[in-house]
C-alpha cells in the first residue's frame, strides 16, 4: 500500500486525518514536526508516495519543508498537499512556485480529503 506522510504540529489535527482516512487503502506515517519527517526521509527510513503537511508550524513551516523536500532526490517529484487554515493567494503562489500539488483548507471535509488522496495516488 502507498505510504502517505502527514505532518502537523497539532496532535488533534493528526488524529482527525487518521480517522478521516482510515478506510483508504493507504499506509500512514504521522509527524508532529517537519524536521522529524525530513530526518526519516533523508535516512530513507520512509519513502512516501504522498506528503500532506500543515503550513503554520514552529521551527520549519510547510513551505520551508516543501523547499527542503525538493532538494532531496527521493522526494523531488513526490506530490505534496498543503492542509492548512491559510487561504491567502500569495501563499498558494509561493507553494505553486515550489512545486506544490494542491491546497486543502481546514477544516477539511473527509470526503474531499479522501478524494484528493485518491486523485493523487490513483487508488
Amino acid at each position, binding site marked *: 500500500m502507498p505510504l502517505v506522510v502527514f505532518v502537523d504540529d497539532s*496532535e*488533534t489535527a493528526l*488524529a482527525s486525518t487518521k*480517522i478521516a482516512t482510515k478506510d483508504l487503502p493507504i499506509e500512514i506515517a504521522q509527524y508532529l514536526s517537519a524536521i522529524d519527517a525530513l530526518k526519516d526521509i533523508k535516512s530513507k527510513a520512509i519513502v512516501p508516495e504522498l506528503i500532506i503537511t500543515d503550513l503554520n508550524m514552529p521551527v520549519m513551516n510547510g513551505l520551508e519543508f516543501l523547499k527542503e523536500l525538493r532538494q532531496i532526490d527521493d522526494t523531488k517529484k513526490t506530490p505534496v498537499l498543503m492542509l492548512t487554515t491559510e487561504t*491567502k493567494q500569495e501563499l498558494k503562489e509561493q507553494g505553486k512556485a515550489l512545486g506544490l500539488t494542491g*491546497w*486543502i483548507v481546514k*477544516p477539511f471535509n473527509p470526503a*474531499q480529503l479522501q478524494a484528493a488522496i485518491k486523485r493523487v495516488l490513483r487508488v
Partner: protein
Amino acid sequence: MEKNSETILLCVLEILEHIKCVENNVLELSKKSMLNINSFIAESNIEINESIVESLQYQDIITQQLSATIDAIESIDKSIKIYLHNLRQDSDIFSDSLEKLQKRLNQSLQNAKDKKNAFSGGAFNEDNEESVEFF
C-alpha cells in the same frame, strides 16, 4: 500624572497575565478532551459522519486562535514594560514614549487580526465547498 499612568498600566499587565493564564488552561483542557474523544472513536470503530470529523478539527482552530491572542498579549506586555522602563528612567520623555507605546500596541492589534484571519480557515465560512484546489 506619570505615577497614575504607571499604576493603571501595572493593573493592565496583571489583567493580561490573568487572561493569558485562563487561555492556556482552556487550551490544555480542550486538547485533552479532543485527544480522548479521538482515541475513543479510533478504538471503538464506530461509524462517524462528515460533520463529526469536521467538528473534531475545530479544536485545532480553537488552539491556533487562542495561541494568536496569547502572542498578542505577550507583545502588548512587552511594549508596556518597555514604556514603564523608559518612564522610570526619564519622566521628561513621557509623551514621546507614549506615542511609541501607541504605535506598538496598534501593531500588536494588527498582527493579532492578521493571525485571526490566517488561522480561521473555512471554519466561519458556511459555503466552504471550494476547500480543495489542485495546481
